[in-house]
């Protein structure tokens, strides 16, 4: 099934920019666009006008500030008219999908310098008016009525605890680990160290997930500028190469909750996307070949599940990875050294791009206190919808 997706696109990331993630009450959607794009062009050593095409990822314009409904909202704050820009919308995988589309256009020769920008401005509204409102007010009048985003993942957590002996502490320790990592990241939304006890005792959101098992609602933007590998100028650029990109929509929004064959024990989308990306990148044993991973820990249970879905361990064994601290900074395979979504926050459209920037920065060796020593290959992973859509991107320091 992945035959058509097995062709490697020979693409390099040459410029990156990320704003501070957080409650950016002093900045508008447009400010975030400008700040992240200018960082990226500076990093790439190019001027704005050298960008030939753009992909804009904003997942929820209608619950944000009505910005990002089309590619237009990327160019307006930059006064960079006259080039093609497409808005990409694929739930929490939107940012990664913008990167994928930019890479495809470069590979197809549509343009020579492409930009993928993720930006989300959620805090210009109160939290109840945004994500919760979507589940309460705007979704189907019957299906899944009663869920918030947390609940759709908590349903997985409950079943996995029942099947595999995963404990509340195991889930909480994902949050403890990522908050520790986040304390080392000056762009993270929440920078604090916490204990297992604190996670367990924070207010319950959707049993068994507490507030500290859940990522915050955040503003932020991230940008990457990409060229074909053949166009990299080593005298100017500090490139990171894309070895593989997989994206798969593997279930629906409602059907998992009404399909008797859906076991709520894994995300098929992650497995499918990983299979595509691994094939392109020639990866057969990720645990041995990959040095650093960013996974989509919107809720702590999702990170645990993703260990298994990415093939880092067998089904039911994720708990051993967190218990053995294998995924902590300094461990066998550090995961979410940025602090993940739990600590950085989750401006939905920006997250996927931020994670690519994080891995690329690690591979460049520029991650400061949270640098994974000697990292040469990394993965960034996103999952969106209630586990419906996943993206896996493999990055490599070497070409």
């Amino acid at each position: 099934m992945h035959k058509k997706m097995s062709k490697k696109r020979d693409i390099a990331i040459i410029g990156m920019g990320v704003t501070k993630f957080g409650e950016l009450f002093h900045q508008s959607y447009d400010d975030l666009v400008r700040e992240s794009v200018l960082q990226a062009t500076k990093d790439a050593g190019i001027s704005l006008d050298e960008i030939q095409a753009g992909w804009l990822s904003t997942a929820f314009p209608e619950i944000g500030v009505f910005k990002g409904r089309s590619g237009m909202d990327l160019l307006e704050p930059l006064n960079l008219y006259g080039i093609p820009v497409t808005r990409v919308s694929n739930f929490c995988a939107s940012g990664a999908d913008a990167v994928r589309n930019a890479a495809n256009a470069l590979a197809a020769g549509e343009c020579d310098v492409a930009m993928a920008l993720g930006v989300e401005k959620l805090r210009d509204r109160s939290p109840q008016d945004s994500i919760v409102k979507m589940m309460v007010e705007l979704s189907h009048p019957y299906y899944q009525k009663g869920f918030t985003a947390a609940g759709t993942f908590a349903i997985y957590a409950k079943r996995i605890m029942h099947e595999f002996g995963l404990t509340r502490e195991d889930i909480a320790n994902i949050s403890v680990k990522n908050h520790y990592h986040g304390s080392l990241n000056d762009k993270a939304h929440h920078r604090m160290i916490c204990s297992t006890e604190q996670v367990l005792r924070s207010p319950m959101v959707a049993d068994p997930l507490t507030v500290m098992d859940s990522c915050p609602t955040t503003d932020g933007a991230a940008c990457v500028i990409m060229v074909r590998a053949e166009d990299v100028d080593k005298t100017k650029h500090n490139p990171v190469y894309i070895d593989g990109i997989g994206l798969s929509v593997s279930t629906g929004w409602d059907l998992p909750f009404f399909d008797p064959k859906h076991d709520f024990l894994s995300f098929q989308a992650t497995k499918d996307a990983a299979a595509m990306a691994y094939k392109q990148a020639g990866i057969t044993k990720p645990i041995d070949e990959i040095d650093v991973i960013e996974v989509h820990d919107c809720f702590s249970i999702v990170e645990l599940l993703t260990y298994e879905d990415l093939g880092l361990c067998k089904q039911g064994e994720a708990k051993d990875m967190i218990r053995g601290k294998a995924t902590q900074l300094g461990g066998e395979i550090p995961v979410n050294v940025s602090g993940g979504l739990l600590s950085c926050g989750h401006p939905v459209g920006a997250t996927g791009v931020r994670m690519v920037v994080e891995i690329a920065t690690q591979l460049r060796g520029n991650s400061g206190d949270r640098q994974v020593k000697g990292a040469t290959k990394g993965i960034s992973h996103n999952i969106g919808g209630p586990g419906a859509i996943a993206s896996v991107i493999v990055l490599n320091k070497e070409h």
Partner: protein
Amino acid sequence: MSFIKEYAIALPHFRISDKVLSPKGRKGQHAICYTDEDIITLAFQACEKIESDIDAILFATTSPIFKDRYHSSYLADLLGLKEGILAMDLGTTNRAGTDAVVLADRLLKSGSNENILIVAADVHYPSIGNETRSAFGHGAVAIVLSGKEGITKITKAKTYSSAMSEEFIYKGEKIQYDSRFARTRGFKNNLAFVLKSEELNSKSINKIYLNSLYAKIGFGQLKKAGFDLESQLGIDDVGKIAGHTGAAHGLMTLINSIEKNKDTSVLLDYHNGINLIEVESIELEKSSFNTKTTEINYYQDYLTLRKQGKFTARGYKSIEMFSSEMISERDKEMLLNLKGNKCKSCGTIYYMKALRCNSCKSDQFLQVQLSKNGTVYSITNEYYFPNSFAPTNMVVIDLDGGGRITVQQTDDMYPSESNLINIGDKVNLVFRKMMENDKKPNYFWKCIKK
């Protein structure tokens, strides 16, 4: 001749006692709707148990939720009854329920119908502060009258109209005449007229029931007619456990009577005239009124419950749920009648329609009826979904015989051992309103622990 062929009662799970409503409260208690119940869900709950092939439906209520829309037609649709069926609403007074019996009896005698479904449901709240002076209670009843056969024979079904009404509503205001004048001219006169005209005889009648808010002042008349109050007067058992259920109360009294008595009983259902229903029953040896209940502990909780249509969760005042008449109508068979789709090739049953089977990719499906019983596959408790009684418990259920559905738990205002749901538990689907703050009622399935 007409017969009661089958019947069913629906009372809400919750009860509030007069002691909770007021420190000066006496002994009464009231059946009271949960946040997601109304006359339609109660009526539906009663009708669910009905098995006969229905050719007419009469709906009686004094607390209509619709105007310019027949509840009977709406319910006929929800129940999947034949299109174009005779469907009519009756209302205005508490004897609307027995009015329907009188009407149905005549329709059956005329031979135009065979099985008539009579549904009566009422949900009234007294004004705040006056609860203990009111005999309110919520409930619904469904009775099928047949022209051919049944468990109880209806030997008389008559109406004696009276112009006088002791209290009534005019331009939204409650009007009360001088009570002695009104009750003498109204109830007493009307009762005397009925007893005389019908020559009701204490020898041939085993039990006599008086359904009226003024029943007591009619006891003298019954005595005069030769009835022994001690042994022959029927007691309002339903009122004791559920309160006065409005238009449903006469029919509930009738059912209580046929469940408790044999031979001939008479119900005199008074409000602005008397309906006389005489039945000949056999021993049924069952009681439809002893259901599992939970007491409401606090007046505050009762106030929250009666805010039907508005919820009080923090921070969500402005949120209204999206509801769509188009979606409800289009997917009616699935959403409301619980019809599923069975893959012709591999047999997997789906609640939701899909173009191709998730297991075998076949595109051929058969429509099947799904069960209302099932086993919990997974569950979570949502603390941030707006709900006056958070958390909202979301339950993934594998239905007996196939199919999976994900619904909210209901009747779970007070978490306890009896409603704590775990993976593997057995649950039942019940028909309720989807959310509390909807602009129009949006009915769907929820679940309760078995």
